[in-house]
């Protein structure tokens, strides 16, 4: 099973990197969205899945990355050079938010993060240097979609690799302990706040990088687009639907979601029912298979395997 998923992952990575060679622009755009979704889902999963701290405020980090890139580019900086700055800013912000918010446990933390997202969006639309609610445009310059695409693809692959490394490391073990029983983890000497802050900062930085690349590709950002609650929402839904706390789950969830979104957007009648679909998906997953699609696949696969051995 593990070897199988590794092979699937590597071939997916190779396909994504080589896609510009044989895919036309329209399809490539869809793969770009997929890579974007994979980054967001896998990064969120580091805190939300591995450590079990479900945050609904991740659009804040995306927005920080996007705004940093646009503002610095307007000052004359190369957009790609601004990427690390946005990531560092997002990480700092995540720690500032996390210090009070991680005093809360479970659902209380989640609700507080809704507040973070709201507050950031309100601030971004009210202050002047962000261009207010009308948003900001990137300075006119060379626009190279293939380069933007490759950057997003590389980041997506790196994110999945980083997530896999984190899961296997001592760091990941500590996060898993926090998820299972935070009091027991504390009793064993795990400084839960420090590990949660670390996971938060890492995932925030990755999401900010994706936000920067988003801004570079779309050339225009506004609080209504990058700080949208719907964005925070889909960031959470993808890993949960795919299989929370795993490596392949968020990728699977992102795959399902971006296909769904592309298909939904092309049908005018269904365009306005995405909330219904997201909501129903969430209800169904929570009631019937909290481990998501991956959990379902595993169950089916295991049953097949068991039957196979029983027959043999």
């Amino acid at each position, binding site marked *: 099973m593990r070897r199988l998923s590794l092979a699937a992952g590597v071939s997916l990575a190779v396909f994504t990197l080589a896609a510009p060679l044989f895919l036309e622009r329209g399809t490539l755009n869809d793969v770009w969205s997929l890579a974007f979704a994979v980054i967001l889902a896998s990064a969120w999963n580091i805190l939300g899945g591995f450590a079990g701290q479900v945050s609904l405020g991740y659009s804040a980090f995306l927005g920080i990355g996007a705004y940093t890139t646009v503002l610095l580019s307007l000052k004359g900086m190369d957009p790609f050079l601004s990427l690390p700055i946005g990531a560092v800013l997002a990480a700092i912000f995540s720690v500032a938010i996390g210090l009070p918010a991680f005093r809360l446990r479970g659902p209380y933390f989640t609700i507080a993060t809704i507040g973070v997202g*709201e507050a950031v969006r309100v601030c971004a639309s009210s202050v002047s240097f962000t261009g207010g609610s009308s948003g900001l445009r990137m300075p006119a310059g060379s626009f190279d979609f293939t380069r933007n695409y490759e950057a997003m693809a590389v980041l997506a692959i790196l994110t999945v690799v980083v997530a896999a490394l984190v899961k296997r490391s001592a760091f990941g073990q500590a996060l898993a302990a926090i998820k299972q029983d935070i009091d027991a983890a504390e009793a064993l000497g795990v400084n839960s706040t420090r590990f949660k802050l670390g996971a938060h900062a890492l995932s925030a930085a990755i999401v900010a990088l994706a936000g920067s690349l988003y801004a570079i590709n779309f050339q225009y950002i506004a609080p209504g687009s990058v700080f949208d609650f719907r964005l925070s929402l889909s960031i959470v839904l993808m890993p949960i639907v795919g299989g929370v706390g795993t490596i392949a789950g968020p990728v699977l969830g992102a795959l399902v979601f971006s296909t769904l979104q592309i298909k939904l957007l092309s049908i005018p009648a269904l365009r306005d029912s995405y909330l219904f679909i997201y909501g129903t998906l969430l209800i169904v997953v*929570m009631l019937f298979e909290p481990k998501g699609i991956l959990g379902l696949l595993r169950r089916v696969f295991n049953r097949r395997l068991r039957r196979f051995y029983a027959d043999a």
Partner: protein
Amino acid sequence: MQDIAGVLVNSVISAALYATMAYGLAVIYGVMRIINLAHAGLMMLGAYATFSLFTRFGLDPFLSLLVVGPLFFLFGVVLYRLVVRRLPRSGATPSMESLLLLFGVWLVLQNFAYFIWTGDTQSILTAYTMKSVAVLGVRVGVPSLFVFAGSVLSLVFLNVVLKTTYLGKAIRAVTQNRDAALLAGVDADSISAVAFGLGTAFAGVAGGMLSTLYAFTPDFGRSFLLKAFCIIVLGGMESVTGVAAGALVLAFLENGLSAWTTLPTSFQDAVSFTLLFVTLVAFPQGLPGLFARLRTAFR
């Protein structure tokens, strides 16, 4: 510059409404250890139900609360029986599954509202919407006064139910200790259904009252959910007086800041959120914890 009486009167009026919103959340939390994220969606639906009764049948928004309340109670019971009951039961702290499940319910409700009432901003305009009267020398809008009366009535109703009926006793028993209540012969499942219905009814009534004060869209309710949550964190989840005190503190801060500072109104919603964070950092036990600490400090 507004005088202190104005801020106080307005604070008491909004506090009553805030307490109504927060109680709905608190009853459900108490009995089931679930944080009802769908509360926001239910408030929004309450606003639209009132709106529809007003535009279709010309029913006064405050009279329609008598329809909305029971209707939402039934809706809550059905929601509990169909969906919420199937969840694995939360332990001492609410489970993540319940939170996400009810989040899903909220999304479905939102989409339902978009489908029926579209995304246009709606508001209810009655003959008295723009009228105001003087209370203690302060001009107060007539709808606000009605909202105050409606909130006080619903809070009194809830307290009478909780204090004098068997049902109320059972709800309090399950809140205190579910297993002990079960041993004493309380049908905890039915009580949970009733509690969920009550919480939903309170959300609907609060939403109906909000609709007379604010314009609303299907996205309505998120900032009020945050306010209700802030009140509960401030006042403690289980104490009735705590919720009232938390509501007063939040309402006073909001009104005071808008009267005495030049804070733009778009930041008004951020008050509850900032208060939430300050509470968590400075006194995570909420107001009861703060008072306990003050008492020991000044002894």
